């Protein structure tokens, strides 16, 4: 481990919440990856004689209105939530880095135009826009990932632009230019690796938001379609039975809460650990 990584870990470990978030995420990953091994029942197997049973030893989290085991459905649902979160954010940081780098490097009118565009995008009530586009394109999981990605890149682009604006004046960039290096190469091979730190923070926080958005979409019926299990749509299907089958509402929501919370904690922890201004405070 090089000294930069070691310093980072030293500061990161200071926050118990951040470490907790990281561990939680690793746990969720483990669970999602081994869903097929852990799940006691087939998530799609219906058995109407077993419908709406409360949590018991045979069915840890109860059964839903079609007799499917909620625990198994939630395990498979974790895969959806995580994959939507990650792919959507991958798309958004790709766009964000592109926009931010170009705006920050070239400056002047390019910067103005791009930032105006960012401001316009920020004015959209994003959830509504996402809903509209999904309604148009159809609620396939790829569409969801794509649309969430296209509407959450703005934060990343601002941070990347800020990094580029400051790094652009540094000596190593001047040297590269003096050597006649092409712009594209300077941007991607030299400046970007140094300016990547805030992107980790925004990426993590954006995953949290993406998971919440996916849950909201599934809740409204525009996310993952039944019978495929997603935490959001288990909640929706349980809406009708809310007074009698509370377990259909409590558990999926709690799972969403825990997952999103751990990503937020991790993101904040990363931010504190990577921010040089906060060093030497305690």
């Amino acid at each position, binding site marked *: 481990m090089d000294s930069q990584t070691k310093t980072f870990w030293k500061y990161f470990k200071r926050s118990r919440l951040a470490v907790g978030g990281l561990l939680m995420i690793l746990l969720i990953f483990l669970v999602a990856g081994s869903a097929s091994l852990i799940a006691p029942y087939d998530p799609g197997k219906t058995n109407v004689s077993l419908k709406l049973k409360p949590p018991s030893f045979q069915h840890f989290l109860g059964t839903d209105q079609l007799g499917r085991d909620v625990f198994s459905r939630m395990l498979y649902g974790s895969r959806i939530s995580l994959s939507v979160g990650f792919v959507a954010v991958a798309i958004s940081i790709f766009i964000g880095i592109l926009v931010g780098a170009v705006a920050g490097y070239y400056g002047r009118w390019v910067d103005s135009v791009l930032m105006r*565009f960012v401001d316009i995008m920020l004015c959209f009530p994003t959830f509504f826009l996402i809903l509209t586009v999904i309604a148009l394109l159809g609620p396939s999981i790829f569409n969801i990932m794509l649309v969430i990605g296209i509407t959450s890149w703005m934060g990343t682009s601002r941070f990347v632009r800020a990094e580029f604006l400051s790094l652009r004046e540094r000596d190593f960039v001047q040297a590269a230019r003096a050597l006649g290096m092409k712009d594209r190469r300077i941007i991607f091979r030299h400046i970007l690796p140094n300016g990547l730190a805030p992107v980790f923070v925004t990426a993590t926080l954006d995953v949290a938001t993406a998971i919440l958005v996916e849950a*909201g979409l599934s809740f409204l019926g525009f996310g993952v379609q039944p019978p495929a299990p997603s935490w959001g749509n288990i909640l929706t299907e349980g809406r009708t039975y809310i007074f009698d089958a509370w377990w259909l509402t409590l558990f999926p929501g709690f799972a969403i809460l825990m997952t999103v919370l751990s990503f937020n904690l991790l993101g904040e922890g990363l931010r504190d650990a990577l921010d040089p201004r906060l060093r030497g405070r305690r």
Partner: protein
Amino acid sequence: MAQYLLRRLLYTFITLVGISVISWVIITQAPGSPIAITLDPKVSPKIVEQMEKNYDLDKPIYQQYFLWLKRLFTGKLYSFKDGRPVLDKIGERIWNTLLLNFVSILIIFSLAIPLGIFSARRQYTFLDNLGTFGAYLGISIPGFWLAYLLILGTVKLFGYPVLGMRSFVTEDLTSLEIVMDRLWHLMLPSIILAIGGIAALSRYTRSSMLEVIRQDYVRTAKAKGLPEETVYYKHALRNALLPIVTLFGFLIPGLIGGSIIMETVFAWPGIGRLAYQAVLARDYPVVMTINTISAVLVLIGNFIADMLYAIVDPRIRYQ
């Protein structure tokens, strides 16, 4: 000051145009929009032609946009679902949404700022850490889940209906009871809508206050023997308020987006719910108009934030 506001107004207008163009392009040009019907080979060419004329599809793209704008402003845009003018449908409901959002904003600011200051004064103590953790919970909790849990809780506890803007048999009650009923129905959705905002704003206030507290003038104020309340709420807060005002601009899109889910859960007759139903029914004129109107609301909110910013920060006024 006037110059600054004028500039912001112009900028707002340009942004509005940009938003309407982008919305329009997305909705009319995406696959699955009304044009898709014309691709169905079973539909006879005469009908296709008629549809194209109805939707102005035979005209060049930029003209379609302006025609849509014209229809929108003259109130001639009709809903696909029931043929009523779109502006009528929106006009009936928009005040409900505005009411809900306005109350949420009040709640957010009146709770978040004191919480943030409270946390900042007691940095690193147990209460501060508790508050911080609470804020994390607040931004992570799925709104619709919390809504259902609270609905379950209040209905089991009080046995009184919670959904919608008012209960059903309100004709025989006294006006005081009617007002109380309305308030009761307003409470839950606006609080839940406000939770995310409270969490975010209190964190923001806290960090802004922390920066301000370290300044020399605060130390001077304390050394002068001013009461703690005056030091924090009068002197420190004024300077900490700047970044908070900018956050106001970011709060509004979140609230409007959150309205969709809250209004659906609570059967609140607002434009969020109207939008959701319109999306379900593929009612494009309504969807487009609400999209644009939400963006307008956001821009108005930003503009108010800019005005507040000019009031709060004297440096801006003399630019």
